[in-house]
């Protein structure tokens, strides 16, 4: 059993320094144990990343296709028929396909790219390396976490090929639409596969999350107190805790919905007449589903955003050559965001028909969560103030993250206010808000992380110039796409419409829709600069040498490993930690690694 072998090898490695030499010369690894069923956290992280990138291309492409419908409603594109067949007859996408694309774009980007691709990649990669551990607490479970994600991916992808089409009920899958095959083509077999895929995905998240928390709590190296953890690690820990506490609730919603679909229960169904058919279900509540869904759905946006915040904190501090401002305030605001994010879910439901009193409670907590977010922004700004900033591609994306997070975060104050939400709920205002604050911003966090840790991941450098071009095109397009949407939103233009030409109220936006679509297409194409850079650099990039193994002059532990660390990370003993990770420009030193003892005449930060 190759897995057991790997596991055993790991446990030997972690037993301590005496046999740590072991990590140097591995047992002979076959291709399968090294690249496929690997228990090395670094390999698993790379698997998450590459899978995430593939999903991002698919999810991004879907958005391009439905943007083409919105931007050019009267034109036909014959190549669409080549790809989608009967779903795009004559080069015009059908309404069913449109809604499938919208649904899949949301599902893929939120779950598969920004949850698995972002937190999966960097939690796996950085947790053991930055806390000084040889691997995760349970490497085999960690491997399972990836393979459940992979299985979820396969099921989700295959759902696109059933004859009735993939799910078309929105990534929020509100019943009764998602519960009744009669209600939409995409609520038939495609919906079942969609639910199974999400089920598998939740299993993956729970396995991963438990592992991350266990590792951070138990496996820190000597001297690595919680208060000496890099902010990335804090963010991964809170992300994992959020996931563990909320994903099971989504699981219950998925299971109950399956019962409603196939076993004749009425959890979410009541008083329904569809296509002239009177259904027997009575007493269920569609609003109950929304509570279950948003209990995960809202923390989910923080599951997506927190790792990006952690990465940004690290990258901004390193490249400003300054300690992060207000370390404890940053940790405190992570904690506040995590706690508050679990009691704000119903702000998605102000106009769902729930009791208005609930609406007032959720307004209160929702606006409160803006406070820790504001603290973070001001702390990043102060970190840059009087720094000596080096614009690496990672730093550019981190600055971009802060900018987008501000722009999108501020509109949250509108939407979180129940009274204003009555008007702009489910309009383009909402689309602009969440794409800026958790969609594009978190993508920026992910890019920042990739550019920053690529040398450690693959032992080679990415091309900087391509990185710069990639950044500038992407941020310009991001604003061109989402800024004008605020204007559509305050006009009350509803989201998820296939065609607006029939609406007198929104006719003035015809030209704007075309403009946004063009910007979206350019943004999508520009991402291939990154993708090419990424895969090309894995094989052909400039090599990281032992002398240059800490290219950003960072203080954290991962840069103390060999240029391309093997399974077990450090060939000798795990280094001991003596200080916090943000000693940049202290005294007359540019940076002081965490491993260096505090001098006699030197105070702790």
């Amino acid at each position, binding site marked *: 059993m190759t897995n057991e072998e790997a596991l055993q090898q790991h446990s030997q490695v972690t037993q301590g320094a005496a046999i740590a030499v072991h990590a140097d010369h591995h047992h002979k690894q076959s291709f399968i144990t090294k690249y496929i069923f690997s228990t090395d956290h670094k390999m698993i992280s790379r698997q998450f990343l590459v899978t995430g990138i593939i999903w991002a291309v698919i999810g991004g492409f879907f958005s391009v296709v439905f943007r083409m419908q919105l931007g050019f409603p009267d034109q036909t594109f014959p190549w669409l028929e080549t790809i989608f067949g009967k779903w795009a007859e004559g080069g015009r996408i059908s309404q069913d396909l*449109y*809604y499938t694309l919208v649904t899949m774009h949301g599902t893929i980007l939120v779950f598969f790219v920004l949850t698995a691709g972002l937190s999966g990649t960097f939690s796996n990669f950085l947790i053991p390396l930055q806390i000084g551990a040889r691997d995760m607490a349970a490497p085999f479970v960690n491997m399972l976490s990836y393979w459940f994600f992979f299985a979820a991916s396969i099921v989700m992808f295959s759902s696109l090929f059933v004859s009735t089409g993939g799910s*078309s009920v*929105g990534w929020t899958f509100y019943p009764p*639409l998602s519960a*009744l095959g009669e*209600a*939409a083509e995409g609520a038939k077999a495609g919906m079942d596969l969609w639910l199974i895929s999400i089920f598998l995905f939740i299993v993956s998240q729970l396995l991963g999350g438990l592992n991350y928390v266990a590792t951070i709590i138990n496996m820190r190296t000597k001297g690595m107190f919680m208060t000496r953890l890099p902010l990335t690690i804090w963010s991964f820990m809170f992300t994992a805790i959020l996931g563990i506490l909320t994903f099971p609730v989504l699981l219950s919603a998925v299971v109950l919905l399956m019962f409603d679909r196939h076993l004749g229960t009425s959890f979410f169904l009541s*008083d*329904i*007449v*569809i296509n*002239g058919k*009177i259904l027997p279900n*009575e007493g269920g*509540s*569609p*609003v109950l589903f929304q509570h279950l869904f948003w209990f995960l759905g809202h923390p989910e946006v923080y599951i997506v955003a927190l790792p990006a915040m952690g990465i940004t904190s690290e990258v901004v501090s390193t490249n400003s050559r*300054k300690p992060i401002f207000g370390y404890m*305030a940053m940790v405190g605001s992570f904690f506040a965001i995590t706690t508050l994010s679990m009691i704000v879910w119903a702000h998605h439901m102000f*106009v769902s028909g729930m009791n*208005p009193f609930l*609406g007032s409670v959720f*307004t209160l907590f929702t*606006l409160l969560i803006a406070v820790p977010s504001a*603290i973070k922004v*001001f702390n990043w700004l*102060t970190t*840059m*103030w*009087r*720094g*000596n*900033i080096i*614009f690496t591609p990672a730093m550019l994306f981190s600055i971009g993250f802060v*900018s987008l997070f501000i722009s999108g975060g*501020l509109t949250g*104050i509108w939407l979180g*206010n*129940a*009274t*204003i939400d009555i008007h702009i*709920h*489910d*309009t383009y205002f909402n689309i602009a808000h969440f794409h800026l604050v958790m969609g594009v911003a978190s993508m920026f966090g992910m890019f920042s992380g990739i550019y920053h840790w690529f040398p450690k991941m693959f032992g080679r450098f990415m091309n900087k110039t*391509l990185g*710069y071009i990639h950044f500038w095109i992407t941020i310009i397009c991001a*604003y061109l796409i989402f800024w004008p949407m605020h*204007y559509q939103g305050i006009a*009350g233009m509803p989201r*998820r419409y*296939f065609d607006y030409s*029939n*609406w*007198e109220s929104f006719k003035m936006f015809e030209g704007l829709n075309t403009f946004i679509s063009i910007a979206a297409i350019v943004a999508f194409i520009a991402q291939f*600069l990154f993708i*090419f850079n990424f895969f090309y650099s894995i094989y052909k990039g*400039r090599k990281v040498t032992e002398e240059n193994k800490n290219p950003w002059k960072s203080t954290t532990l991962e840069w103390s490993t060999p240029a391309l660390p093997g399974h077990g990370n450090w060939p000798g003993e795990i280094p001991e930690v003596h200080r916090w990770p943000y000693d*940049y420009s*202290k005294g007359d030193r540019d940076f002081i690694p965490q491993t260096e003892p505090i001098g006699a005449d030197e105070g702790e930060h």
Partner: protein
Amino acid sequence: METFFLIVIVLLIFLVIFQISKASEYVSILKGEEKAMKQSNKINGFLMIAFLILGLVGVWYCNKLYYPGNLFSWGAASKEGLVIDKLMWTAIYITGSVFFVTQILLFGFAYKYQYSDKRKALYYAHNNTLEFIWTSVPAITLTILIIIGLKYWFKFTGDAPKDAQLIEITGHQFAWEMRYPGKDGVLGRKNFKLTDAAMGNPLGIDWKDAASRDDVHVPTTMYVIVNKPVKLVIHSQDVIHDVGLPAFRMKMDAVPGMPTTMFFTPIYTTKEMKEKTGNPDFEYEIVCDQLCGKGHFSMKGIVKVVSELEYKAWFRNQKPAFKKAQEAALSAMNEAEPPVEAEVTNELALEK
């Protein structure tokens, strides 16, 4: 052919970019990394400030293009909407000023503090006073926003004014149905199990309830009286829909099995709005704001705001739904068994 050329052009652009990028990497090795870093740092520092300035110009230009003629710019067409507009303006001023200040600081710092040999970064790890300021100022501002917001939230979601006109609106894939109470001012009972479009009862009205006999059913278009509050009782027959009234700034979900309510007071007639907007085709549109299936985008309703006189004239011409159901039942009977007496039909329709 066009697509083909487009693809070729994109590929060529890519090729050029790749070549330049690769060349720049070699150059940086030749020049020495330190020097190359300084050079690219300068360029990016300049781009930071350029992006900020062009971005601010873009914000202004976008506003110039899309504010005039925007539905929001006409002001709300309902009494409640005017309050929501006011709250939105408060939000625009507060979040807008924070937006400008923070973005200018962000890109300004990036430009000003870009790498220089001469500067040494300041070791500045924390300052409790600063932290206290930017915790308490947002907290106080938000508290004020919450208090103002909630005051109106309770008003708008509370009971409708006593003199409000009662109208029931029912959504189904993919259209809206309106029901008006007759002279009694009471809507008759409904039971979804009685729904039978063929027998003239698409809404599932219970004819046994005497109050239902004078109810009027009108598809798609809702007539309301200007300056008189309207109370909507909202139903859905199949999936969740949402009654969205952008011009009145109002919105509420239609949930199967759980009637919801909403009220608003229109202050301009449709005719006045046509003049106000300078658009002869202007209509108050009812949009569906909750994804309800493939026809979601086409689920359109109309609100006609008219004077009381016009409304009365219109209502006088409406036939009660019960009468229509009788006729439908009669013709259904005739098809099945041609000679049937009217009284029998009447009874059958009653039982339905």
